[in-house]
C-alpha cells in the first residue's frame, strides 16, 4: 500500500481563471477512504479554497457526483484503492456549466424535472377518510426501479445527447416521468407523454445506454427511454389511424 496518492483536481475560480486548470495535491492513502475523503483532507488541511458539494457520505443525497478519471462517479462511493497507483483525476461533471472548481450548475435540470409533472395526477382524488389507494407489491414492483433516482446527474454527464442537445429532458427526468406513468395510482401518463414528445430530446436518444451503465442506483434510465419511445410511437400511430379515439 502506498503511503500517499496524488490527486489532480480541476480548479476554476471565475474571478481569476479564464478556464479550468489542474492543481495537484498529495494526500494520505487509506484503504477505507473514498475520493470524497481525500477532497475533504485537502480542504481541511491543505487548501481551504477548494469547493465541492457533499452531504450524506452514504450514496443517497446525490450531491457529490464528479468525473473521476474521466467517468461520472459518486465520490463518496469511489474508493481510492480502486484507482491505484494514481494520480487520480477529479473534474466537475461533464456537459454542465462549471460554477466553481468541482461545482456545476444544475438549475436547468430542476426546470426539466418540473416539466415532466413528477407528481400523482388523479382522475378522482379520494378524501383521506377513504383510506389508502390500494397497491399490491406486484404493482409497486412495476415502477420501483424508476423511483430510486437520487438526482445525482451522473447519467447526464454520461449522455452524448445531453452534450449535443442541452434542451434534452434527459435520462433521469424521463425515468421519473416513467416512475409516475407506471404507478397504478396515477392517471397522468397522457399529459406527460405530450410534454415529452413536444420537447426536444426523446427522439434524439440513440440508445447508447451509457446512462444506465453509470447509474449508481440501478435506475435504468435507458430502459425508461425505450419504453417511452415505444409508448410514444404507439400513441402517435394511434392518433394517426384513429383520430377520433378518446385521448
Amino acid at each position, binding site marked *: 500500500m502506498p503511503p500517499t496518492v496524488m490527486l489532480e483536481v480541476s480548479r476554476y475560480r*471565475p474571478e481569476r481563471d479564464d478556464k479550468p486548470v489542474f492543481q495537484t495535491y498529495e494526500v494520505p492513502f487509506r484503504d477505507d477512504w473514498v475520493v470524497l475523503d481525500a477532497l475533504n483532507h485537502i480542504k*481541511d488541511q491543505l487548501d*481551504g*479554497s477548494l*469547493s465541492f458539494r457533499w452531504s450524506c457520505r*452514504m450514496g443517497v443525497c446525490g450531491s457529490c457526483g464528479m468525473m473521476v478519471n474521466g467517468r461520472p462517479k459518486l465520490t463518496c*462511493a469511489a474508493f481510492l484503492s480502486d484507482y491505484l497507483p494514481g494520480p487520480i483525476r477529479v473534474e466537475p461533471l461533464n456537459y454542465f456549466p462549471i460554477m466553481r472548481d468541482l461545482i456545476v450548475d444544475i438549475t436547468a435540470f430542476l426546470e426539466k424535472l418540473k416539466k415532466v409533472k413528477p407528481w400523482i395526477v388523479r382522475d378522482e382524488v379520494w378524501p383521506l377518510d377513504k383510506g*389508502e389507494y390500494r397497491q399490491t407489491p406486484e*404493482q409497486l414492483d412495476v415502477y420501483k426501479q424508476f423511483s430510486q433516482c437520487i438526482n445525482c446527474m451522473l447519467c447526464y454527464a454520461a449522455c452524448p445527447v445531453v452534450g449535443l442537445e442541452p434542451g434534452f429532458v434527459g435520462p433521469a427526468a424521463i425515468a421519473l416521468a416513467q416512475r409516475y406513468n407506471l404507478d397504478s395510482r396515477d392517471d397522468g401518463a397522457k399529459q406527460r407523454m405530450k410534454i415529452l414528445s413536444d420537447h426536444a430530446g426523446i427522439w434524439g436518444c440513440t440508445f447508447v445506454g451509457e446512462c444506465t451503465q453509470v447509474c449508481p442506483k440501478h435506475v435504468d434510465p435507458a430502459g425508461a427511454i425505450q419504453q417511452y419511445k415505444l409508448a410514444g410511437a404507439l400513441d402517435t400511430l394511434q392518433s394517426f389511424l384513429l383520430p377520433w379515439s378518446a385521448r
Partner: protein
Amino acid sequence: MDTFSCDVLVVGGGGAGLRAAIAVAETYPNLSVTVISKVYPMRSHTVSAEGGAAAVIKSGDSLDEHAYDTISGGDWMCDQDAVEAFVREAPDEMLQLEHWGCPWSREPDGHIAVRPFGGMKNQRTWFAADKTGFHMLHTLFQTSLKYDGIRRHDECFVTKLLMDDGRCQGLVAIEQATGKIQAITAKAVILCTGGCGKIFPFTTNASIKNGDGMALAYRAGAALKDMEFVQYHPTGLPFTGILITEATRAEGGWLLNKDGYRYLQDYDLGTPQPKPVLRSMELGPRDRLSQAFMKEQEKGRTIKGPYGDYVHLDIRHLGAQVIDTKLPFVRELCLKYAGLDPVKEMIPVRPVVHYMMGGIHTDIHGATPMPGLYAAGEAACVSINGANRLGSNSLTELLVFGARSGKAAAAFASGQRAPNPSVLAQAQDEQRRLEGHFLHKTGGTERIATLRVAMQDIMEQSAGIYRDASALRQAVTKLGQLQERFHNLALDDHSYTFNTELTSALELSYMLDLAQVIIASALQRQESRGSHQRNDYPGRDDGKFLAHSVAYRAQDGSPRIEYLPVKITRWPPGQRVYGR
C-alpha cells in the same frame, strides 16, 4: 444586496420544511411562500432516513398505546398534550403522503404494510423498504413542484434572522452561487433546519447538519429546550458512522457480544427469544441499548477494532430473500462501506450520535414565544421526544408538526401588516459583518478543521452516553477557549462564488454556540433520565427535574438555563418497563 419579500418564509427543504410549505400553499393559497435552503431540497438529510415512520393504522393498535410508548420511551419528558396531538394526526398525515405517491411497502392485498420498531408495543411503523426518508423526501419535493405558489431559493445559506422589537420579520442569506447577500422580509418565518449531529465526531448525520436554525433562533433571543438530550443510536458502522437501521432488529436481527451472546438480556431488557418480541431485547429503546453497550465494553466483552470497540449485529438468519426485499439498502451499505455481505457475515456496529431530542422551544402549533417565529422538525422541540426519541417517530413528526407550523404561520401571516422596512438596515450590518469577519479577513492562524475536531472531541469526552460534573465543567472552559480561538481563524478563500469555506466557518460558529448550550444544560440537570445519564446522579429525580431545560443566550454570550414544567395529561410518571 438583493431584497425580496414574502408572506411565509420556510427555512429548510427537508421533510419538515417541504411539508410546512405545502400546508401554507394548500390552506392559504393567496399567501406567498418561499422555501430557502442551503442545499437543494432533495439533498436534505431526511433523504438518509431508513427504517420507517410511525402512525397507528392497523386494528388492534390504538392512539393511546402509541402515546404511551412515546411517553415512556421519552422517560416522561414529553409534553403529553403534544404527544396526543401527534398520535392523533399521524395517520392522516401518512395517508396524505400515500396519496401524494410515496411508494410505501404493501401487504399482499395492497394495504399499507407496517413493521415493528424499537420501544413500540404494536406494529405501526410504515416503511418504504429501508429507504423511507429518501422516498418521503422525494415525494414531498416532487409534490411541492405542482404548487406554483411555492417559490424556492435553493443553495442560499441563512446567516441571521431579522428581528424588530422581539418580532421576526425575515432573514439574511448568502446566495452561494454568487455570494450576493439576500435580505428577505416575511410576516412569518418557520425554521426547519434539522439537527446538529456534526457537533460530535462520530455521527450518522450528514455534513450539513450543524444546527444552523437552532443557533439563529438562539442568537435572536429564542430559547433552546432540552438540549442535553442527545440520542446515540446503538448501531452505526465503525469509522463512517453510517447508520444500520433499527429495522434490521425489527425484522429479527440480534446484537451479540464478543462471545456471540445476546448481551441485552443482562440489562433488564427481557429474555432472548428466537423471533423478535415487541418492547423487548433488541427492540428496546435506543438509550437503553446504547447504555448497555457501554456497560458491556466496561466488562471487556466488546470487540476491539481500529475505530473503537464494537459488537456484532447478526441478520444472517433472516436469509437473502427477507434482506433483499425489506433491507436492501442495509445490504448495499454493508457491501459498499463495510466490505461484507450481511447475508453471510455479521455486521460490526457501535453506538453513534444520531438525533437531537432538544431544539427550538415551541408550542404545539410550532410557534415560539417570539411573534412571527416558528420551528418544526428536528430543529424544534415541541416536545414529543422527551429524553429519548423512539425510532420512526421523527419522520412522522416532520409531517404532523411541519403541517401544523405551516398552517399556524400562515394564519398569523394573513393577519399581519407588511414588515417594517427599517429591518433592512440590519441586513446592511450583516453584510458588513460577513465581509469584515470572513470574506475579506486576512491574518489569523487557526484552521476551521482544527477547531471543529477540538470541539467534537470535547463533546464526545464530556457529553457522551455517560456524563459527570467534572468532565462537563472542563468542557465549559475548553469551549470558551475555542470561542476565543474562533476569532483567529485563517481563511484561504476570498471568492464570492460558492465559497464553501465561508459557510463552513459559519457552521462552525453555530455549532460552538450549541455545544455550549448542550454542556450547560447537561451540567445543570443533576439526574439521569433517558439519554442523559450522569454517573454522579444515577437516579431520575421527578421532584426537581420533571421539567424542560430552556436555554437563553445571556449578554456575555453564555447560556442561561431556566426550567419549564413538563405537561402531564393522562400518564403520570412511572417506571419504564421493557421485556417484562
